[in-house]
């Protein structure tokens, strides 16, 4: 279908605001009389607060109040009240609730002062005495304490084995048993978590929050503080990255709200960078894989088990071991998923939660199997290609993975690969090639949208979703402009405001499919109304016309059969005396249709690395990826999403590692100098192709979502390339130089 806006590489509509600094983030809002809160974090991992001495701090002029568990008013009674839209099973952490310390860096007090400087200074004068209890933060030593990873959580599929793994494994000719590990990662968006809470005269609250869901924040505040939802307005127009860290309300929201209500003043609380390491991370997993195949490479049996960390109070679950049944044609699959409860904060969804790590292990093991079979790794994937999800026994709503493999392999030059490890040398470097598949879920969630067309032909569309840098503003604008035949400049998209119609959290790569569909529907409604009104104009050529008879183009309603018959939209408004047209709609997924299929995005990733084995230096020199993500709404922002995913994949493969000091039970490299995120100089050439196939099962607008798939598979492709380069299989991430250095060296 010819389009004017959709699919084109459009610039972000909010780009200018962002680069000129006029886009305001949560900590940048101000109000007369604003005061500042600084959070004090616990210095121990487990125990009790024996005493908090705030005397010296309160003596400082300008310090208004110090909130601790001792003076925090009785709040909601039930754990349930602290649940949010993304809570895993369990009892959520309740800030300042008691003297109990459940994890290191737990927020234990909030110092509020007239200025940030005073609050920071006063925080240093607060003396805390602890009663220390023994903590355990070590996953590897606690596997015998593991419990079943189960429970209800949006998006979570409890593990389910199929066929007879043991028998098939025993009977098979070729067997592989291997184990993978990866370190913890923290989200570390550029913008730190912050909330500015304005106490309104009527007792209501206006809250500027860093969040991936304003309605989630509103729900949380409403439940805990017992304030009616309609008296709370949560606003979050811009988010400086989140990657999942904004899916749950973080404690700064609780703190700022508490202080604003108590002091009846506007309060701002912004976390520090070290505190960004205090509330959830991508959990470490230890994964074991057993693969069995016949000599031709057909998989006979697969067992994927994972041990993952969680807190003592919540059972954080994600889909780590659920991917073999979706990626490969194998009748006997065993899935085991276990949790170990440790003295740490609950892990938190991070970009492609479970998938990024589970597929890493699976696709690395597949590579090992390929070498064992003496088979081209791509060939092995194709041999086991599946058109149905073996677990659900359902076909895929769409799947162009085969084409992804083909396109990416060709662009990469995979056919030139020398199968022998250590076969290519360039000066000091060994050169290696590796590949992997990626897979992620494709979903539509219920969403609502509203739209208002004014007499001057300007349109405003809105939904309470978020734009965490992904381009939501832009695609909402494109869809609306396309549907009503308007230039994009005439459309304004609104989001990040709890007074707008419902949208679910901005996560799971669902926003384009969900909010996009709602925007499309509401604009369709406006279009129908316009056509109806056009028909009522005297001598109208559109009398009795149906939507199929017309197109909306160049700000006109145009007769499909005859271009010369048209009427400008503004004329319709004028002649019919319409000030505005306003519509609201709800877009619900068609569950009946969807349930017949398994719905996923897919990818193929090829990587080239160069390794100086003597010094362990690894440089990723090329990544070629092809993506199956349904219809692409904006070639530019979608490309950027995949780029970001690949960058993250390189970072995950080679650098990111939050290191827990087990003696203290504390992440110890808690700043951006020592928690390494890939920098520009680390970046290879990144080549991205979308293999588009509109998927009208996942969403009526054909979209599957691009937010996460770009990351899945990258770390495995790099690890596999490292093996091909060096002949050394490194089974733990990140692959730092100490792991990559050769045992013996020529120098």
């Amino acid at each position, binding site marked *: 279908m010819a389009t004017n806006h959709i699919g084109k590489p459009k610039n972000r509509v909010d780009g200018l605001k962002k680069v000129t600094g006029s886009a305001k983030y949560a900590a940048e809002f101000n109000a007369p009389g604003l005061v500042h809160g600084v959070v004090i974090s616990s*210095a*121990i991992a487990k125990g009790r607060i024996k005493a908090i001495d705030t005397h010296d701090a309160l003596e400082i002029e300008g310090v208004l109040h110090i909130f601790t568990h001792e003076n925090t008013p009785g709040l909601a009674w039930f754990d349930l009240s602290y649940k949010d839209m993304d809570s895993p099973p369990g009892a959520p952490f309740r800030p300042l609730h008691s003297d109990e310390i459940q994890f290191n860096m737990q927020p234990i007090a909030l110092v509020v002062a007239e200025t940030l*400087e005073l609050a*920071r*200074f006063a925080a*240093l004068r607060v003396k805390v005495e602890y009663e220390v209890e023994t903590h355990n933060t070590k996953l590897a030593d606690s596997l015998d304490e593991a419990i079943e990873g189960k429970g209800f959580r949006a998006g979570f599929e409890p593990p389910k084995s199929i066929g007879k793994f043991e028998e098939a494994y025993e009977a098979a000719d070729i067997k592989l048993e291997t184990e993978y590990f990866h370190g913890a990662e923290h989200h570390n968006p550029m913008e730190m978590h912050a909330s500015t809470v304005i106490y309104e005269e009527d007792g209501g609250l206006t809250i500027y929050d860093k969040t991936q869901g304003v309605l989630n924040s509103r729900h949380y505040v409403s439940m805990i503080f017992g304030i009616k939802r309609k008296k709370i307005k949560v606003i979050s127009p811009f988010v400086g990255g989140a990657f999942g860290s904004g899916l749950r309300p973080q404690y700064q929201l609780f703190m700022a709200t508490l202080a604003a209500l108590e002091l009846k003043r506007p309060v701002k609380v912004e976390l520090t960078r*070290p505190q960004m390491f205090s509330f959830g991370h991508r959990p470490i997993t230890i994964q074991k894989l057993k693969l069995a195949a016949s000599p031709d490479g057909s998989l006979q049996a697969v067992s994927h088990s994972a041990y993952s960390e969680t807190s003592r109070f919540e059972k954080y679950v994600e889909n780590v071991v659920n991917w073999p049944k979706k990626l490969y044609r194998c009748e006997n699959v065993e899935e085991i998923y276990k949790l170990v409860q440790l003295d740490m904060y609950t892990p938190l969804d991070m970009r492609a939660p479970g998938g990024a790590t589970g597929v890493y292990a699976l696709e690395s093991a597949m590579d090992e199997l390929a070498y064992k079979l003496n088979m081209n790794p791509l060939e092995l994937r194709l041999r086991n290609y599946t058109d149905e999800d073996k677990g659900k026994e359902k076909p895929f709503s769409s799947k162009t993975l085969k084409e992804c493999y083909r396109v990416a392999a060709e662009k990469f030059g995979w056919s030139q690969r020398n199968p022998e490890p250590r076969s290519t040398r360039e000066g*000091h470097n060994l050169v290696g090639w590796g590949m992997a598949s990626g897979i992620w879920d494709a979903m539509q969630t219920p969403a609502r949208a509203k739209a208002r067309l004014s007499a001057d032909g300007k349109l405003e569309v809105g939904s309470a979703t978020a734009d965490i840098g992904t381009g939501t503003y832009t695609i909402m604008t494109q869809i609306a402009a396309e549907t009503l035949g308007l230039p994009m400049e005439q459309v304004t998209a609104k989001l990040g405001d709890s007074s707008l119609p419902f949208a679910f959290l901005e996560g799971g790569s669902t926003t384009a499919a969900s909010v996009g569909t709602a925007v499309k529907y509401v604009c369709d409604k406006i279009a129908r109304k316009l056509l109806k009104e056009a028909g009522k104009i005297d001598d109208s050529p559109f009398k009795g016309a149906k939507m199929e008879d017309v197109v909306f183009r160049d700000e006109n309603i145009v007769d499909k059969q005859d271009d010369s018959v048209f009427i400008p939209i503004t004329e319709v408004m004028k002649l019919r005396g319409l000030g505005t047209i306003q519509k609201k709609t709800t877009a619900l997924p068609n569950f009946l249709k969807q349930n017949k299929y398994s719905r996923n995005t897919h990818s193929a990733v090829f990587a080239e690395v160069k390794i100086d084995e*003597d*010094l*362990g*230096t690894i*440089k990723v020199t090329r990544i070629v990826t092809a993506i199956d993500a349904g219809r692409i709404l904006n070639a530019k922002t979608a490309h950027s999403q995949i780029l970001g995913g690949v960058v993250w994949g390189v970072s995950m493969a*080679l*650098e990111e590692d939050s*290191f827990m*000091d087990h*003696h*203290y039970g*504390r992440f*110890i*490299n*808690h*700043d951006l*100098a*020592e928690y*390494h995120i*890939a*920098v*520009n*100089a*680390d970046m290879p050439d990144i080549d991205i192709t979308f293999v588009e196939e509109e998927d009208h099962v996942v969403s009526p607008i054909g979209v599957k979502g691009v937010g996460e798939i770009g990351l899945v598979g990258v770390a495995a492709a790099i690890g596999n390339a490292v093996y091909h380069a060096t002949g050394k299989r490194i089974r733990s991430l990140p692959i*730092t*130089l*100490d792991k990559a*250095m050769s045992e013996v*060296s020529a*120098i």
Partner: protein
Amino acid sequence: MRPFSYSRAEDIDTAVNEVTAHEDARFIAGGTNLLDLMKIDVIHPQHLVDITHIAHDTIENTEDGGLRLGALVTNADTAYHPEVEKRYPLLAHAILAGASPQLRNKATDGGNLLQRTRCYYFYDKTTACNKREPGSGCAAIDGYNRLHAIFGASEHCIATHPSDMCVALAALDARVQVTGPDGSRTIPFEDFHRLPGDTPEKDTNLREDEIITSVDLPPKGFADHYTYIKNRDRASYAFALVSVAATLEIEDNVIKDARIALGGVAHKPWRNKEAESLLIDKPADRDGFQAVAAAIVKEAKSFRYNEFKIELARRSIVRALMEASQTYQ
């Protein structure tokens, strides 16, 4: 962060007077290290003396044919100075291997010498650290010590000095000019930084009331044969795990002078002159380089997470010398 007072000095004498007159006073130059540490309350001076206006911000030739780097010259201006590029390319390379362009634009040569360690525990006040709080213990010895020293550590501290610039300065035998209440003195580079011993809170032999006025480079710049290798966890904006500055003077394929300084491995830029002398009057070849490298790492001692540094140091030394023997103008 705690409140502090501030004054700005216009010349060396006032700077020294101001620092002596105030209790717990510190100089502030680029502020790229000092302010970070103040924000997290690891350092909490009561008074800051701003020295960014005391001049000493130029690079000049010295009478003996060397080069004087004013203490307030920025790291960026130093690295891109034509005389440095031409005569001391090792120094330019080492500086550019460090930090980021923004930081190098702000950071000064004097401040670079006095930057504190990057030991995680030094930065986290909830942990034990003798350098931060003498007598409290050293969390790194049994903790996460991947970044830590393999040479010259003590039971009180195993931290490393993080600078790249200083590794080159050590190799070049620079001299540090300082002025204090009792006048001026020159500190040879190897005596500037110290080993931790039982006073790890002291990084250097500079007295608290002394100011660095310049760093002087001797005439010999080894512009023909030099290398700086920096091994780190990412391609930019990461401190060295092991770095090597190597310089050679070669005549007819015979080595006449050789310097090897290591970074990221000790409380100070690490040199072993005895080992270096093994190279003198020998041909510039791999065997000789391997012998020196072996002699240097013989003294190394590792901890739980940094064992790799010993072999990495050995290989890096050989690689650096191989490359240095091949570099020509």
